[in-house]
């Protein structure tokens, strides 16, 4: 199910022409989400979901209301618009309401719906499963994987004449292999790929299967501080712990890691991480090919959040920027997120490590203390001891308690950034470019015999 620019504009124009208010905005979203899931080396779920919707917001002075409908006939649109108009009038004034964004907004051109991803259907996914399962069987492990695909259109229009359109198609391949006796488990995967020819189901399966086999009979190590090498997936999850802190409002309201000691002040300009930490929203990045449309329909531009360890920018939405008399930010922190890396391979990181741990996956990360970014989480699906530059064997999983505020001052090596989802699940956009990282002195606090 695909929506062209013309089809979407016909719908948004229709809404804008029908609605009578001081201001009107329309957000369109529609397309297909589909997925194949397998476990114990057999398909367990296979689905195709279709949706389309418009969210219609009307403004009367400081009053507004939003309604929505997923059916675009005249009667449905008329009902939605009239209800928005009535609800807005009943609503108390909202002093945080901002005027609509005016054109022109020059959106960076991004080709994000490549034919290989658009045409990636259940048959292609089933073939990948068959290929993966064949390797699993050869190696004597059980494969449990997930292959989600999105072919989606987001658009925004308002009564000031603004129109923005972004269509994309992407897929992921995520796999956990386990030994039949449940004593070994390994993970590998790649996410958010616009060019699905980059998905190598065979290579990913080889990695996950080998990790499962090598992780059998782990030994228990004492909890304590370890040098850790985070492969891109755990690195991406760890990076995600910073996202909330990049918002200016909670920082200036005194309730985030970026709040300075003095109330109302932030850490903007301060050096909070090591020299090798640079984090950006690289709108227009040719691998990510993510949306050029920012909050409220603004044209997003690249933003550097952290530069060589110093806080370079915080995200100001339009209301908070106006209140604080600062420029607003046209790009959200998770848009086209890139953490700059280095040239080191994971193998080189291992070689350079006297004693440490190689981590394949982080699981169930939850905040413990928001002001310090202290979080807890588990290792999973492949944890290995490194001794004198070599993998010495599997280790029982650890619970960790640590913070990027501390750990990003202890990064000693970085790999090349690769696409990896920063969220716990893999369903919505959320892929960033993230490098593998070697972190010194990481706090492992207890053992879990879970495999």
């Amino acid at each position: 199910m695909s929506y062209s620019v013309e089809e979407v504009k016909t719908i948004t124009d229709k809404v804008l022409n029908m609605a009578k208010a001081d201001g009107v905005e329309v957000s369109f979203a529609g397309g297909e989400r589909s997925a194949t899931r397998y476990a114990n080396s057999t398909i367990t779920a296979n689905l195709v979901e279709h949706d389309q919707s418009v969210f219609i917001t009307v403004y009367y002075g400081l009053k507004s209301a939003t309604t929505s409908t997923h059916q675009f006939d005249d009667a449905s649109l008329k009902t939605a618009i009239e209800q928005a108009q009535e609800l807005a009038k009943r609503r108390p004034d909202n002093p945080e309401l901002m005027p609509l964004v005016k054109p022109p907004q020059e959106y960076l051109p991004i080709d994000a719906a490549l034919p290989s991803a658009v045409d990636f259907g259940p048959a292609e996914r089933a073939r990948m499963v068959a290929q993966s399962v064949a390797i699993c069987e050869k190696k004597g492990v059980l494969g449990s994987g997930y292959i989600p695909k999105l072919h989606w259109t987001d658009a925004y229009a308002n009564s000031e004449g603004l129109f923005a359109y972004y269509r994309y198609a992407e897929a992921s391949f995520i796999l956990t292999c386990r030994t039949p006796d449940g004593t070994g488990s390994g993970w590998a995967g790649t996410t958010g790929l616009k060019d699905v020819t980059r998905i190598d189901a065979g290579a990913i399966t080889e990695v996950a299967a080998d990790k499962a086999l090598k992780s059998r009979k782990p030994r228990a190590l004492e909890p304590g501080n370890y040098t850790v090498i985070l492969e891109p997936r755990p690195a991406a999850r760890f990076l995600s712990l910073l996202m909330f802190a990049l918002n200016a409002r909670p920082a200036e309201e005194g309730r985030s890691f970026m709040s300075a000691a003095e109330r109302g002040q932030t850490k903007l300009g301060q050096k909070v991480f090591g020299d090798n930490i640079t984090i950006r929203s690289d709108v227009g990045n040719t691998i990510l090919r993510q949306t050029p449309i920012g909050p409220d329909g603004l044209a997003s531009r690249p933003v550097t959040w952290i530069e060589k360890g110093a806080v370079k920018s915080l995200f100001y939405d339009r209301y908070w920027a106006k209140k604080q008399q600062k420029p607003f930010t046209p790009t959200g922190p998770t848009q086209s997120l890139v953490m700059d890396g280095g040239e080191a391979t994971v193998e080189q990181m291992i070689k350079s490590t006297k004693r440490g741990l190689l981590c394949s996956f982080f699981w169930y990360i939850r905040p413990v203390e928001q002001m310090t970014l202290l979080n807890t989480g588990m290792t999973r699906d492949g944890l290995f001891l490194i001794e004198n530059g070599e993998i010495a064997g599997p280790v029982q999983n650890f619970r960790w308690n640590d913070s990027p505020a501390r750990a990003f001052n202890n990064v000693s090596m970085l790999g090349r950034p690769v696409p990896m989802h920063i969220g716990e699940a893999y369903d919505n956009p959320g892929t960033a470019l993230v490098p593998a990282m070697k972190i010194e002195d990481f706090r492992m606090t207890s053992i879990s015999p879970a495999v």
Partner: protein
Amino acid sequence: MSPNRRHFLQSLAAGAAGIATTGAPRWAYARTFDAEREQAPAVRDPKYLEWSTAALGEAKRLGCSYSDIRFTRNRVQSIGVRNGQILRGGGGFGGGDATETYGFGVRVIHSGVWGFASSPLVTPEEIKRVTAVATDVAKASAIAKKRDVQLASVPAYDEFWAVKIEKDPWTVPLEEKIEHLRSVCSTMQKNSAVMFAVAMTSFEHEWKYLATSEGSFIEQEFHFTSCEASATARTGTQVKTRTLERLAGAGYEFLVKADMPGKAEQIAAEAVEHSMAKPVGQGLKDLVLLPSHLGLTIHEIVAHATELDRIAGYEANYAGTSFVKLSDLGKLKYGSKHFNVNADRTFPTGMATVGFDDDGVKAQKWPLIKDGILVGLQTNRETAHLIGEKESRGCTFANHWRNYPFLRMPNVQLEPGPKGSPTVEQMIADVKDGVLVDGSGSFSIDQQRYNGQFGGDAFWEIKNGKKTRMVTDFTYNAITTDFWANLDAVGPPESWEHHGLTGDAKGQPVQSNHPSHGSAPCLIRKIMVGAAYS
């Protein structure tokens, strides 16, 4: 896995755990409507019988060995107030707009494999098209199957079932609901040390019609009500939030009974005291855990670990497996002799209470743990045969018409102790060095549900049999079976409460479930405290 916190509001809107990302697709499928004018759908509307009969016939014609069609219509109204001002989330969410989502999903088995497709366009032509898509998807998958799906038998039902409520939230004017929340906020804000006061409420009405090729036509109606009041205080650089959060399968009466206005002053005072509290320190301590806290602990280390699909490996790629093995049934010592746990889809006001599950299996109650021994598991039609059972326990559920149904936990309840069991006060009197814990906080556990680290919302030191002062920086570490083995007392029947929760994420694409977990207060001996902050 667990509630990713926080809100009923957000999870109802987004339907998924995980971090919010800019530009994420809106899977809300919602239409907004006037809550006070719009009536609930007509019961036993004959068009659904007609449409579903056509869909099941089409699936049969296409060669499917099983099919079902499930229509759902969810109406949600959520309102949030922060420091007296109405919150405005994405799409007006939280601002009092009521949204509706309506659509259907068709599930089939063809060639021994599941196929599923869904759509918001509820017309006879689209139902036919979607049935064909579901069938095609199943056929395409057959090249990668190893074995055929095997379903336990189920009787056919033709029934209507509804949650009983005292007051329909949709008849209460928006203005009255806003005023209720504003009064909660203003009471909390009277405490000048409170930075932020937030009050929220949410109401959901769900209508569901399921028809299966086994001959069932089942219509159900549900109501859910949630509320939350929180105060945030900062002393120096220590920022603490105290939260009261309640959810139930109930109507407007639940908001009234939760009595947020009556508790607002105490919430504010405890937020301020917590922001000034000293760290609890590290070491082995006895814990007195209140039902508001135990809900999530039971969820994480009992309810998830006893899901049969996890034990069988279905969730290996996401939510995880379980430390429980099939061979543990009837043998595993899960906890002390005081530890008795039931699964229950029939409990009134439970968040996971139903008349029938999404396989069309009638709701039931059954034991999971008896006198500390594992005696039962959660099953559905697809998994029952794995433990040699002929019938499903009725644990299939989809959180939305767009999503495929699969095994989800029911309400899982820790039974109270016998009459005359120790009260909270008597438990405290029996503790030399311990902590009293209320509410839920930071929760994390491994993928097999063995090593958990749990926080809470508020903590009081217990010294020599007395509750002394609030403390902070509290977490405890629990190895599941050791933790419950140290269960020394469970409170009496009159102290039993159940707590609803949401955000229970499982499956790919991820779906959010909403069970309730009940218990009486518990006394657990010698648990490691404070390791997160060491």
